[in-house]
Structures are given as C-alpha cells and as structure tokens.
C-alpha cells in the first residue's frame, strides 16, 4: 500500500478511537481534559525536531527553534498543569490508602 494511504487510514482510525475514548470523559474533568489535550498536541515538537537537521539558513533555524520552544511549552506545561489540577480532585471519603501518590 502507498504510504499516504496508510497514513490516511491511521488518521481516520485515530479519529474514531479519539472520539470513543473522549466521549466517556465526564463534565467534571473537562478542564483537565482540555489542558491534557493541550499537552498531547505538543507532539508538534516532533516536527521541529525532524526538520532541524535538514534546515538551512538562519530564517529556517530561527523558525524551528521557536516551533520547538512552542511545542515544549505545550508538552511540559500541559502535562504539569494537568497533573496539578487532577491532584486536587478528591473523593468524599479521605481513606484512600491503596493509592500511594508519589
């Protein structure tokens, strides 16, 4: 199969998987979901990393450094802030010893 066809197949299937998984997220967690997906779309950092070695000239390098910085902000900031937020969601009953967080 042509690699484009495979990529498009992955695209479509991933769309359905994403829809199935995210549909089950309750309203309570919608803000962490948004900040978590912010971190996930930080995957664009890979684009910057992939192109860096092939880039020529100052302009391209500057653009890619900015792109990598933006992507890193997404990844690092997104996962950290989601973790911070999720840590605040607590159940009514405090005894929850089976989960030794950290």
């Amino acid at each position, binding site marked *: 199969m042509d*690699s484009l066809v495979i*990529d*498009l197949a*992955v695209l479509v299937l991933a769309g359905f*998987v*994403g829809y199935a*998984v*995210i549909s*089950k*997220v*309750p*309203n309570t*967690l*919608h*803000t*962490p*979901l*948004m*900040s978590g*997906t912010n*971190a*996930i*779309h*930080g*995957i*664009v*950092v*890979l*684009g910057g*990393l*992939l*192109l*860096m*070695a092939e880039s020529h000239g100052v302009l391209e390098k500057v*653009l*890619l*450094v*900015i*792109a*990598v*910085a*933006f*992507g*890193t*902000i*997404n990844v*690092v900031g997104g*996962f*950290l*802030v989601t*973790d*911070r*937020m*999720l840590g*605040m*969601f*607590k*159940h*009514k009953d405090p005894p929850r010893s089976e989960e030794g*967080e950290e």
Partner: protein
Amino acid sequence: MSLPLATVFLQTTNFIDACYIVAFGLMIYGMSGLTGPRTAVRGNQIAALGMAIAVAATLLRRGEFSGSSTVWLIIAGVAIGTAVGVPAARNVKMTAMPQMVALFNGVGGGAVALIAWVEYRHGFAHDGSGPWSLRVEIFELFGAIVGSISFWGSNIAFGKLQEILPGRPIKLPGAAQSVVNLALFVVAVGVAVVLCAGTHSQLLFIVGILVVAAVLGNLLVLPIGGADMPVVISLLNAFTGLSAAATGVALSNPVMIVAGMIVGASGTILTDQMAKAMNRSVPSIVAGGFGGTVAAPAGATAGAGGGTVRSTSAADVAIQLSYARQVVIAPGYGMAVAQAQHAVRELERALEEKGVTVKYAIHPVAGRMPGHMNVLLAEADVPYDLLREMDDINPEFSRTDVTLIIGANDVTNPAAKNEPGSPIYGMPILEVDRSQAVIVLKRSMASGFAGIDNPLFYDPKTSMLFGDAKASVSDITAEVQAL
C-alpha cells in the same frame, strides 16, 4: 561502521517506528484514564510517558544531529520552552485556567504554522526545482491555515479572558463581519489551490496563507464575548489538534497523526457539547455577538414586567440556610471572578455541621471554559461527588429548600424555558425556580453577559444579597456559625 552494534540497532527505522507505536498506544491508554477522577492522575502520567518515548525515539534517528549547530538549536528550543512552560504551569491560579488553556492552544497552533512554513521552504531546495510533493504540500497548507487561525484566535481569546482586550463583542457593523470572514477564508483556500497547482512562491505562501489566516483568526474571535468562550476555546483546541495531525501526514509520522486526531476529536466533542448546552449552533456563535445587534432588543422587552426585587441580609440568609434540609449551590463565573471558591467551601462545611445536605449544581457552560467550576471547587477541596451535572440535579430542585446562586445568571434564567421571545429560549438551564426559595448573590442588578433580564430576580420567592460574592459568602458563614 565504527558504531557499536547496539547503537546501529537503536537507529533503525523499524525500532523507531515501534517506539512511535508504543508512544501513541500509551497516549490513548492514558487519555482513557481521564474517564474518572480516580484514574485520571495516572492516566495523565502515562500519556506523558508516551510523549517522552516519542520525543526520545525521534532524537535517536540517524542524522538527527547532523549539522554543526543542530544539537544546540534543539537544546535552545527545549530550554526556552521549559523555562516558559514550567513556571507558568506551576504558578497559574485556577481562576486563570481558561487563559492558560487558550495560550497553550495558541502556541501549539503557532508551532504547526511555523513548521509548515519551513517545510514549504524545503520544497525550494536543490535550486528551485525542488522535490515538490503534492502530498506534503496539501497537508502542510492545511496545517498552515488552521494553525495560523488557531494561533491568532487563541491569542485574542487569551487577551479577552485576561481582560487586556474588552470582553464585549468587537465587530464590524451589520453583516460585514461574516462577509469579510468568508472572503478571507475563500482567499486562503484559493491561494492554497493555486500553490498546489504548481505555482511555487514563498511570498504568496506568507501573504496568501499565513497572513490571511492570521487576519481571519483575529476576526473570528474578536466578536465573540465572555459567555461564548467555552465554545471558542474548545473549537480552537480542535483546530490545533487537526492541524497537528495534518503535519503528521505531511511528515508521515504516525504518532503525530494519532495524537493530533485525539485532540481534534476531543475538541470537536467539547465544542459540540458546549454549543448544545447553550442551545446555539457553532456557526451562529462564530458569527458572533450574543448581546449584539440581534439579541439585545428582544432581551430588553422580555422579563422584567416591572416586578420588584427583594433584597436581604447575610443574617437572614444564614437563618434560611441553617434550617433547610437540602441546600443546592449553583456557582457561575461570578464565583471565579470573586475567587470565592474557598469561602463557598467553608459555608458548605458550616452547613453540613448543622445537618444540612449541601449539593452543587454545575451547568455545563458555567464559567469561561468546559469544567471551569469543577476545577475551582476541586481546588477548594470540595469532593467531586458533591458536584452534580445539570441533568442529575434538575429533578432535585423540587425537593430543595434553598438554592443559593453565586455569580450565575443566564444559566438559571427561567426565560429560557418560558419565554419563546427570549434570545436564550430553548437553552437548557438549572431549574432553580422549582426550589422552595432562591437566594441570589450578585454584585449589582446589572444583567448577565448576554444582556438579558432575568425574571428569576423578580420571583416572589427569590431574595437578593448584593455585594462581592466572597465577602457575602464569608458573612453568611460567620452568621451560620454564630447561630
């Protein structure tokens, strides 16, 4: 072949592709943990692990660090990103989460647009007769347009939420806005077609794609005001995800495709749910302006009916609440503005000590982003099982003695049910008017963001306590404890 065998193996394409598959598997598995608060923390960490594997695998590629400066440029980019991202994530206040999410949406879209630009320039390699590939070009152009819209749109959304820009709709008169937006969209798509048809011009790419999309991004979000923000933020989230997926196809990178599509799906679902919760279509929100030209006159005539408003005192409210069996608290954006979530939690505790059952009613679009109220109350240590979604709590209002509304307005407006002429008619609301008594904490009699009068305030069983929400709640708590 002086490299050790292990290094050679690690650099094979098959190994790196295998890492990518593991990486997106972990991301999907991690995101599925977000279906419940108990599993969510670990899910987020698993997704982060997937991301780390994807990045590490990319850095392992043979030739990744070729070129004298590459290594340092990558380090520089990552260092800058970390230096900005970590303190921002550590220090941001929960009340400022909508801005934060808007900003993160924006930088993601910006990264996509910049990468598309570089990728486009690579087409010119080898003396201008470069290896133009339609496949790369189509998806890069899509990424450039959508990424650029997302970057500028998110920055405007950030400016509005941070109150650097006015929250009120800013728009061209009449239908001009929609016409201009449509024209810009047509121009961007037209230029993309021209470029794909074989015209290779960087100038056209910059002006016709990046700049046109930037203007479009600005114009799309400027007319959209406060209460519609949850929809806009979700939509921009979807845009960034889809543009990332398009970049993934252009670079033939499976983990980018999968991750981008997950975000695209998530943003789409949220956009749809938020729009449904406001009984409005996404196009009508994007076209802009609740409380704008169409809505305001209809709202002004509805409701009021010359009724009188009954104002009350903290002491009276405290008595009403203390002798109730069930109290429901309905928070809105006003609670976020006043940062009253901790005070609200204290009031809840004081009432529970008196044997009152307290529940929270959370409307899906209360606040400025999906789930905004839940995060604020979680910050104040309110257990999430006390937070009830609209469909769960609505049947309970008839069994509720007192409903306490804190800084919410439109989401409790009975006009949405009773007055077909109202601009918000048909929007699902918290049916607070069915409880025995309603107490509204409000700064003043100014109408909500939508500019629509709320007949609830004139209801004989409603009493109003004016003032800053945080101060009012603290006063009530003190009175409850003194009883």
